[in-house]
């Protein structure tokens, strides 16, 4: 729904198979949407030819005996079935209409995306996994303009589950709220510049975790696979078990056990059972985000995170659910502790170097904090820092009361390129001595 007009609905179905052959040190794949017996045989023959052609010059000596052959089933939370289409249309229309509160509101959009995903993993050695997932994704965005200034506020809520996620996301009523906030931003001063405290709410912590912990800990980056595209990492294999990544308050987990999280699953796409793994404990770097193959290459233990974006791409090391465990501070206590700082929420800009070290992030919404109190909205809030030192400035971690489960749809990586969904849960967190600035 956009500007009170229902956009043409789209139905999409996508079905295919990835055939993988491993033989004599070589590896090859072939993906096809032709699922007839002949089509699958042709694809298998092509995959086998690739395995043969690459066995003498492969980076890795592949061994068929290393391929897991698990059996089992997994289903994420399926939740409530969606209502009739007309009820969904009415819901979208209500929020779109409610956002029309001022002539300066120039665009109002609301959408609900419903996805179902079913994955089979079969091997010629008896492996047989069946996994099923459902995603219900509400989205809304309102934009306000006055002359050369434009500001937007948006709602995103990415979790697994059924239509109950719409209510949990606060979708009802979001149109008027987002419009009001966009207008507030339009009138607000720019975010102040200087070195100060930074309070990140969970929806921005999602991005902070993703870019400056998740990507640097991906083991395939550390092994050099991504150096031509997504990049390398400032983290090296020698740093695991001895490197202080952040303050003692920093505890980071790879956690597939929270079923509603966006990227929970029973097994990864390489057949490895997914379990919770501590990556950073009390600030100390413990384990990488590396799947079975990368673990063998690096001689490190890791996680079940070999993931493929779709049937037409091979699995590689990816983030799945990467979370910051709750601490002990209430949000009120964190605000009260800040003499001069800015609260930020809702990511709008992200940029980080190819070693995932020097970053700059921006948010839709900012609030100045002075002497322990929120004192006003600021627009264009940005901050920059260096991953290797930023997490050491973490000085307060929110308790369970500010803990939220978020997710992102489009994490890009890999050659050929793959965009996958990731989950990131975190409480609000306070950092000291951060370079903060506004727009203009």
């Amino acid at each position: 729904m956009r500007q009170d007009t229902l956009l043409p609905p789209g139905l999409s179905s996508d079905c295919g198979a990835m055939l993988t052959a491993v033989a004599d040190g070589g590896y090859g794949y072939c993906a096809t949407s032709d699922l007839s017996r002949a089509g699958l045989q042709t694809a298998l023959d092509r995959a086998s030819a690739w395995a043969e052609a690459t066995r003498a010059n492969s980076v890795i000596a592949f061994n068929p005996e290393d391929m897991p052959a698990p059996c089992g089933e997994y289903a994420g939370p399926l939740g409530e079935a969606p209502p009739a289409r007309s009820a969904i249309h009415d819901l979208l229309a209500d929020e779109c209409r409610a956002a029309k509160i001022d002539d300066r509101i120039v665009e109002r959009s609301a959408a609900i995306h419903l996805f179902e995903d079913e994955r089979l993993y079969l091997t010629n050695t008896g492996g047989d996994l069946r996994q099923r997932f459902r995603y219900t994704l509400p989205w809304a965005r309102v934009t306000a303009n006055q002359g050369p200034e434009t500001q937007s506020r948006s709602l995103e809520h990415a979790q697994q589950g059924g239509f109950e996620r719409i209510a949990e996301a606060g979708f009802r009523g979001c149109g008027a709220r987002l419009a009001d906030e966009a207008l507030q931003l339009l009138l607000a001063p720019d975010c102040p510049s200087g070195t100060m405290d930074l309070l990140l709410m969970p929806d921005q912590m999602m991005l902070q975790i993703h870019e400056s912990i998740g990507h640097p800990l991906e083991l395939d980056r550390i092994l050099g696979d991504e150096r031509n595209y997504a990049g390398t990492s400032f983290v090296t294999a020698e740093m695991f078990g001895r490197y202080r990544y952040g303050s003692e308050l920093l505890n980071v987990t790879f956690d597939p056990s929270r079923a509603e999280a966006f990227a929970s699953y029973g097994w990864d796409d390489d057949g490895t059972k997914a379990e919770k793994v501590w990556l950073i404990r009390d600030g100390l770097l413990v384990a990488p985000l590396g799947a079975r193959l990368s673990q063998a290459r690096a001689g490190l233990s890791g996680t079940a995170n070999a993931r493929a974006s779709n049937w037409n791409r091979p699995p590689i090391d990816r983030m799945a659910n990467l979370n910051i465990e709750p601490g002990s501070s209430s949000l009120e206590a964190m605000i009260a502790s800040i003499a001069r700082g800015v609260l930020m929420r809702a990511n709008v800009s992200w940029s980080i170097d190819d070693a995932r070290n020097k970053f700059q992030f921006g948010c839709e919404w900012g609030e100045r904090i002075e002497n322990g109190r929120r004192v006003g909205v600021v627009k264009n809030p940005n901050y920059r820092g260096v991953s290797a030192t930023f997490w050491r400035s973490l000085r307060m971690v929110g308790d369970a009361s500010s803990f939220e489960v978020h997710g992102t749809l489009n994490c890009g990586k890999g050659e050929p390129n793959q965009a996958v969904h990731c989950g990131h849960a975190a409480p609000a967190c306070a950092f000291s001595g951060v370079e903060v600035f506004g727009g203009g």
Partner: protein
Amino acid sequence: MKARFYALAGRLEGALRTGETLLLGLDAERSDFVRFNRGRVRQAGSVEQRTLELRLLRAGRQASATLELGESSGDVELAQDALAQLRDALEGLPDDPWLLINETPRSTDSARRGTLPAAEAVVEQVVRAAGGRDLVGIYAGGTIVRGFANSLGQRNWHEVDSFNFDWSLHGAAGRAVKGGNAGFAWNPAAFAETLEAAADELARSAAPERSIAPGEVRAYLAPRAMEELLGLLAWDGFSGHARATKQSPLLRMEHGASLAAAITLTETAADGIAPPFQADGFVKPPAVTLIERGGLGEALVSPRTAKEYGLETNGAEAGEAPECLELAAGTLPTDDVLAALDTGLYVSNLWYLNYSDRAAARITGMTRFATFWVEGGRIVAPVGAMRFDDSLYRMLGENLEALTRERELLLDPSTYEGRSTSSARLPGALLRALRFTL
């Protein structure tokens, strides 16, 4: 594939009911992907995919479906099932007031035949040429197909055989040089020559790194760096919809801001490898001038935007992003770039750009791969990754000193969901100052 697609279109048209109009789009490819690390093969494989989009229109309403075609004998059944679902979907829909399709059939047929060897042969040649050096990257090659058909009698076909070998060469201490070979005929000698040139450049990177303090620095942005800058701008910068809703990063050009007079940007469909038609059946004009001598030109206007805002469409796809962007050449000979730079940063590539303030076109991003400090027109030291944060109106406006006379044709190596058909033809840019922050 063309005969199969057109046969399917014919069968489906025969199944339409009175008052129904059908639009079909095909997006298919047969690709080999070979990923390299350390001069050897990391992952090799092939992908065959054929995505069909069906759009059913009736009495001012429309709904769409996409599906993946499998074995050819099942095409009609699959598509007819989708058609039945679309008929159901139309029942509960209101009119679509912004629906606009091309109703004057314009059929086209274009093919760009290439000379691509078996990918296994490319692997052997690459591994042999790499000779144990640390080459990383991906070879993607094969045939890309785009098709369109509608029940008004229009048929469009576009087929390209191409390859894109996007690679980098890596040395000690994280130093790296970007390379690339792309086109329609794989030439192992040309690849070997590019590789040796990259190896020479990498050797120059071996000198001790120079640390540059944040601040304003004279800089040269090579064509690949310009590709990143203009690639970010392509995100709503030329969109008719973004302009109409005041969300364009070029918003302030409607309020007096301008770029340098040397900046003329054109979407040149006639020169690219993207299909000359789009999903609503409109055929693209040969060229659309987006920025003319530093001022706002036309926007890319999709049929939907055109209908909503009372504009004329110029055949843009729904995303209204350029696919064949050209920046007019300047006058600075590329051979004279170092002398003209004199003292400053030579930036081969930029990386991960985004907006610090979108409405003000303020952009941040990183340098990546070979970046050099130049003194007296000579390269004196490599420089590590640096962050810039500056306004487009400064970079390509008041601080633009020159554009190079020669331009590079850069074929987009992107392979999200499928191989890209986008391209850009760009010069390098000499800037009096670029603001670095970290």
